[in-house]
């Protein structure tokens, strides 16, 4: 990244405490953080904000994480945005389902600290040669 541009992150999560926690931690990294509190709002914001990375929860009211994933992957304006699933669900099947849906990573909330999440985002955004 040659120009000094802030990394834009969109967090889509219905749990107030958790999304604030991740947002808080990202502020420290000087990220440009956007927050959506459910799936439908998340899809709308992804199109408006054009984030560098999306952190996506699965269990949400209305359109759930898999629905958001599908909709963002279908839309040509958002299909290139890397999506990291960030969920409390630890089932392998959810990981597999996310991978099939096009998510590039799966983070289990209870198994990771906010620092781990930052690490994942950095890794995702590092251009591979």
């Amino acid at each position, binding site marked *: 990244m040659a120009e000094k541009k802030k990394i834009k992150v969109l967090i889509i999560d219905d749990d107030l*405490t*958790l999304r604030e*926690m991740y947002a*808080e931690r990202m502020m*420290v990294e000087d990220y440009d953080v956007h927050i959506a509190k459910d799936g439908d709002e998340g899809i709308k914001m992804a199109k408006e904000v054009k984030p560098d990375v999306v952190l996506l929860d699965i269990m949400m009211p209305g359109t759930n994480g898999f629905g958001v994933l599908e909709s963002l992957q279908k839309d040509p304006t958002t299909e290139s945005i890397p999506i990291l699933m960030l969920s409390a669900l630890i089932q*392998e099947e959810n990981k597999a389902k996310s991978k099939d849906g096009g998510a590039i990573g799966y983070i289990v909330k209870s*198994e990771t*600290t906010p*620092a781990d999440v930052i690490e994942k985002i950095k890794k995702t955004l590092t251009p591979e040669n």
Partner: protein
Amino acid sequence: MSFYVWKAAFKNPLNISFGIFSFLAGCWVLLNYLWGYYQTSHLLLAFTYLISPAMIISMFTWVNYLFRKNLPTWLSLSVIIASIINFLFVVLEITQIRQLISSVESRTKFTTGPIFSLFTAYFFLIILGFIFYFFWEYKKANQGLKKSLNVIATGIILTIFIASTVSFILPAFGYVELAIFDAPSIIFFVAFSAYAILRLELFNIKTVVIEISAYLIMILSFIILFVVKEDVNLAAKIILMALFVYGGYTLIKSVKTELSQQEDLKKLAENLQLANKQLEEVDALKTEFISMASHELLTPISAINGYLSMIYDEKLVKIEDERAKKYLNQVYGSSKRLAKLVAALLNVSRIEQGRLLIEKSDVMLNELIENVIAELKLKAAEKKHTLKTNFGSLPETQSYADPDKIKEILINLCGNSIKYTPDGGEIEVGFTKQKTKEVEKEHEEMKKILIKNEDAPDSSLQNAIDENLRQLVGNEQIVIYIKDNGLGLSDDDIAHLFKKFSRVGDYTTQKVQGTGLGLYLSKALTEMQHGRIWVKSDGIGKGSTFFFSLPESSQREEIKKLDSKVKVAKDAKPLAKLE
């Protein structure tokens, strides 16, 4: 009898039609008998034949209701036609009865009139039609109905047998005296059918035969009373009848008691089954609840741990106050413990629901144990324990099992030794090989301790783990041991040790904190891998040694064969870890 059947279910068309039938049959038999006895009364004969069409209608009707709920048109039509023909015969009979039977000398010796052969043929045709109809439907009937039909069929066969014997076979040999019993033999058909209708669900052909024969003998001996003319004979017959009645009554009573006891037992068994099912449902609900609750707990735990790690691990905020630091430290420790408990609960619910994923491969035990020991070194060092391995003369040993699960068992057992051994203890981890029989024996010893302490084994685990997984394979087992010189265990401790939420000693005063699920999980994980777990201690203060066995990797194919018989849940998951 007819009224009794009717009374049993007076709105049921089957019972109504059968009631009418048995009443008519009774009249028919009585008139026939009286006619046979008095021989010359044409009026009685006329009445006998007058009843028969109605009897035929009701006979077809109740048998039909036995098979289906509605009367089909073809059946009702043909029955009505048959009855009209029958009635025509009777009309002819009344106006000119001599045309049917011109002169009667005795029951079997009479000169027939011009239409008698026609009437006989017609009568047999009706009976044949009925028998054909019955057995045709019999073939199509289901298992439950067949049982009752068998009883009716027995009645039909008995009736045919007796009727043909007394009116064809015996007369051929010259015995004509019994011929008057040809029509009464229909009583067998009626009686067996009545029984079949009344006690549809209680069938034992022997008791049916006993009961009906007893009744019939009683009735027969009663009828004989009216026939006898001499006084001496009458007195003897009365005594005989009294004996019959008493004997029959006792017999029927005992059969009835037996039957009602059987019925009660059946009901009891059914109730028990129901209660058992409900209990299973409650158990499943409980496991489901734990699974849900654990999941819901994970979200707030993630938040607590996340923020605390930002304070502690990353030091993103400065905390000046030393006491605030101390308090937060306590919060952090408690939160980690809570996370562990939730993970353990999740694992218990997964095992009990049969949803724990097991992935077996060849495992190098030496390497795996060394790795676990290396992980635990820090914890052991905190309490100044020496933690060492001892592989004896078995340097390279392979098992066919799930390495993740072995690791979990080792961490649990070693973790316990580290926790419960006073500072500066010695803990040794190693393995040996033992004969399968010996392993089984050691495990049985544990069970004996359990029974001696009047404690029942945990049934939820027994139910959750498939027998195929529990089965020991091969002649020898690899036995891994964890030996410490710590607190030791009493027999009472050992009895409770592997149960859910069990803790050694009084947990309210316990300094060491645990979930009480570690050993329960270890037992489950061992038994899911064709192994056994047990413990030995020389008593309080003398240290204890935990053992768990694993199969040798040479048994790979046998294990695969056994494991393939176990149904794996679609949504099986690995162990939850919240370290």
